[in-house]
């Protein structure tokens, strides 16, 4: 193409966000595009930085649960879980069996709702006019009804406590969850039928945003993003917390690390979550939900701990430095999307603008957790 040298082309910067339908909140990225192709990407975060860590350092541990809920607002149970496990380990508390089972039921149901949100938003990014979104939200609403019956709120639960649970579940809890699980299984199949084999969806997602396992580890990705690259790492298996070591479930792993694999991994994780919940329902026995003697003020002995849990988006970790009072001296939140977003530039550069949107959607970020 000899003519190419004579033509004057210009790379134009395109600013996406902070308000853009596909940025899932207030993420901003500045793309430099050559025609439709992205040649450079600079992500900007911090538009939702609201000081969760600082506020936690000025609250006692139980108050901090609320802040953690709002930090990871699509998977609040996992955020609570990380905090309460860290405090329990600092204090050396023993959690009753029933509380552990209920925690796992709640956390896994929450994983389903979170992935449902991913499927809906991701399909909207890929261009489905809301249909998969409403299908996914139907399942979410059924599960959220259970959450509401148990905890009293639709989204911000505040249900786990250091040592156990705030209160016991309703009497018909097991039957309710079983009934909803039937529906959820059907709903996952519905979404599977709607999207997975759709030619346009496959054309848009396969081979897009691929990342090798080495790169993924180097950037510190975790969760489904990492597993889609072929690394079989799941904290529930590698370093079991709660009583995950007693459950029988598989860790789905992708092969190529592209957007389609991330979608498939999350779809399969939902099915595995259903399995875990069923097993936990089998094992649910009557019993106490809190240790016998709990102090009114939770004073942790001096020390420090890092506790991570396998949240739907990756490892949600809490690093607590305790100075012996009822407030953490330092509370660091290790958020999954924060690390997952770091690799965004490597994934996007070279693709089209439309792919950038899909790749961003595949990260399934929660800005509250990224910016804290």
């Amino acid at each position, binding site marked *: 193409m000899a003519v190419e040298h004579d033509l004057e082309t210009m790379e134009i910067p395109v600013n996406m966000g902070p308000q853009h339908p596909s940025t899932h*909140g207030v993420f901003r990225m500045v793309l430099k595009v050559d025609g439709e192709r992205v040649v450079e990407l600079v992500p900007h975060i*911090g538009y939702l930085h609201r*000081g969760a860590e600082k506020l936690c350092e000025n609250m006692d541990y139980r108050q901090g649960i609320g802040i953690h809920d709002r930090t990871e607002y699509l998977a609040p149970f996992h955020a609570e879980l990380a905090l309460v496990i860290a405090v329990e380990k600092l204090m050396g508390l023993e959690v009753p069996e029933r509380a552990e089972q209920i925690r796992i039921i709640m956390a896994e149901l929450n994983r389903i709702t979170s992935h449902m949100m991913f499927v809906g938003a991701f399909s909207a990014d890929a261009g489905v006019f809301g249909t998969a*979104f409403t299908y996914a939200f139907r399942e979410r*609403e059924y599960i959220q009804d259970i959450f509401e019956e148990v905890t009293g709120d639709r989204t911000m639960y505040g249900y786990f406590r250091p040592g156990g649970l705030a209160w016991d579940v309703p009497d018909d809890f097991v039957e309710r969850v079983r009934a909803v699980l039937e529906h959820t299984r059907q709903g996952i199949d519905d979404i599977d039928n709607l999207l997975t084999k759709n030619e346009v969806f496959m054309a848009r997602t396969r081979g897009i945003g691929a990342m090798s396992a080495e790169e993924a580890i180097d950037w510190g990705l975790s969760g489904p993003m990492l597993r889609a690259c072929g690394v079989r790492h799941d904290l529930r298996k590698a370093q079991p917390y709660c009583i995950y070591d007693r459950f029988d479930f598989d860790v789905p792993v992708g092969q190529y690390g592209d957007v389609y694999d991330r979608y498939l991994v999350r779809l399969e994780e939902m099915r595995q979550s259903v399995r875990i919940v069923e097993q936990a329902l089998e094992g649910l026995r009557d019993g106490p939900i809190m240790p016998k003697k709990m102090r009114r003020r939770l004073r942790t002995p001096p020390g420090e701990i890092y506790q991570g849990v396998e949240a739907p988006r990756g490892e949600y970790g809490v690093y607590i430095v305790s100075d012996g009072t009822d407030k953490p001296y330092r509370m660091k939140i290790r958020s999954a999307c924060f690390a997952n977003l770091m690799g965004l530039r490597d994934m996007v550069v070279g693709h089209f603008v439309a792919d950038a949107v899909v790749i961003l959607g595949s990260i399934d970020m929660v800005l509250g957790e990224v910016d804290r």
Partner: protein
Amino acid sequence: MSGSAPAAPPREPQAPPEVPARREKTGIEREAERLTPVEFDRGKAPYRRVLPGVLLAPADTVVAMARKSSLWPLTFGLACCAIEMIATYMSHHDLDRFGIMPWPSPRQADVMIVAGTVTKKMAPSVKLLYEQMPNPKWVIAMGACAINGGPYTRYDRVLQGVDKIIPVDVYVPGCPPRPEALLDGFLALQRKIMAERSAVG
């Protein structure tokens, strides 16, 4: 707090001693009585040029009814409340029943739902988006954070309420508000539009 902003005129208490003596007035008649001279240079809406001044009162009513039935919010979520906002659009609650459907561009939007914490880094963008919306426009502050900063109010990078940068019409409390609360906020906004029909250009 969930009602309209203080700027809204009082709706129900209308001089109780005199009303019972006469026939109960319909809403349109009451509004026509309260009608104040409208400045013609305000707003360049085409209907004002098309319809003569005599028809202003009914035209205002019709336009206000059209406006309240077709409130298009800006697709715009900030934080946790956005999830509940999306849930309100979805099948269980379905804002589309009220003619409310989201549009991604501020130029085509009527309502801005500030759903979530407004940080000081985000505040200029929120203000810009508000300014980009064409008149008439309304703002719903959804959730404790948008109302006054909510649980994050003591952190110094957080704006303590979105009403510091843009005027807010309806406050929807909750952390986050339930979808029903947001629906109620929209209904309150519809009442407000009808009550203010003669004042909005």
